[in-house]
């Protein structure tokens, strides 16, 4: 039964990643890192799940491709924000 305790690790990692995402940070970059942490926890979960049921790993690669695309999109938005505001502090949001 010890093999089933690993599921709690994934839920714990996922929950912690979400917690950092919603916490009050000074920088935007921390939020993007927490998104990548959630992606990592899902990657781990997916990996162990696919091994556990003896499937092939193709879906995992597709998931990885899309998550990397999303991460790079977040970084490009960070770059555009730094170009406009000069920093990535959350306090500089005053428009909306």
């Amino acid at each position: 039964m010890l093999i089933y305790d690993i599921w709690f690790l994934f839920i714990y990692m996922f929950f912690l990643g979400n917690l950092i995402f919603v916490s009050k940070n000074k920088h935007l970059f921390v939020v993007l890192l927490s998104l990548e942490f959630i992606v990592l926890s899902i990657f781990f979960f997916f990996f162990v799940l696919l091994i556990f049921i003896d499937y092939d790993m193709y879906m995992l690669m597709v998931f990885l491709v899309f998550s990397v695309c999303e991460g790079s999109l977040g970084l490009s938005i960070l770059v555009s924000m730094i170009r406009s505001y000069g920093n990535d502090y959350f306090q500089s949001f005053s428009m909306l």
Partner: protein
Amino acid sequence: MNNNSNKMFFLFILFFSTLISISSNSWFGCWIGLEINLLSFIPLISNSKNLLSVETSLKYFLTQSLASINFLFMILIKFSLLKNFDMNNIISIMMNSSLLMKMGSAPFHFWFPNIVEGLSWMNNFMLMTWQKISPMILLSYYFNKNFLIFMIIMNLIIGSLGGLNQTSLRKLLAFSSINNLGWMIFSIMISENLWLFYFLIYSMMIFMMISLFFLMNMYFMNQLFINNMNFFIKLNLLINFLSLGGLPPFMGFMPKWIIINFLLINKFYFLTFIFMMTSLIIIYYYIRIIYSSFMFNYFKMKWMNLLMKNNMSLINLSSFISISSMILSTFIFM
């Protein structure tokens, strides 16, 4: 840099992503469609180089990526625990929550008026109509009825009460969109055809209003009052606002009528009461605007010509559609 072919490319991918999402065999394909949707919508909205569009695209990206990554995690949990047909558990609640966050529905709606405030009218039209198709269809595949009814009530109340203190037209339409989202989610639970009907009529109404605001370049409510508009344009505005609120002779009443019919036949009396009362608040707010604009503050300058003589046919056509669609739409069931 406004009219380049990049927009057409990303628009094509946006349309394609919704089709991927709603026609996939597995939940993973649905997630892929949602991701491509996000990836192709962000370049559409972050095209201009001012601070507002940067902040808008950032907020949109953060909420949508969190929602879709949560959705994927819940898909994996559902897959690993083999809960494919049991719709009354915590996993269906979590999956519905992440889809509701993607739509801008009520407990997760706080990003929606902010982002709608920061976008131009055509991007708003995309956000309010097309971006809601794939989360809603995915919601219809695996929904938790009790949870969704609670969310519907929250949607209606927040959509009606939130629009009371707005002076910006975009935020007003955002709260109206949240209210109509409540109606649409309930119509999903009735039947898919009814949802499609409601959604088509809603997107037609929103298109007429947004095209009117876009042509007049109006973003705030005081621009409605001090503008030297043509009589027919103001009449069209009146008709479209009343139609959006759901008053009877106009087009927007028909889908709401069908939903109320279903509610009363199946004895959902409390829910009917909430639907009616929140619609009343919305209509009060619209009437406050259009009466002030159309009847009380009716300025007509003597020395300037009438605006917009070239686009009169579009205005007349949309007024005609709004007025007569209720009767014409009964012909589609023949």
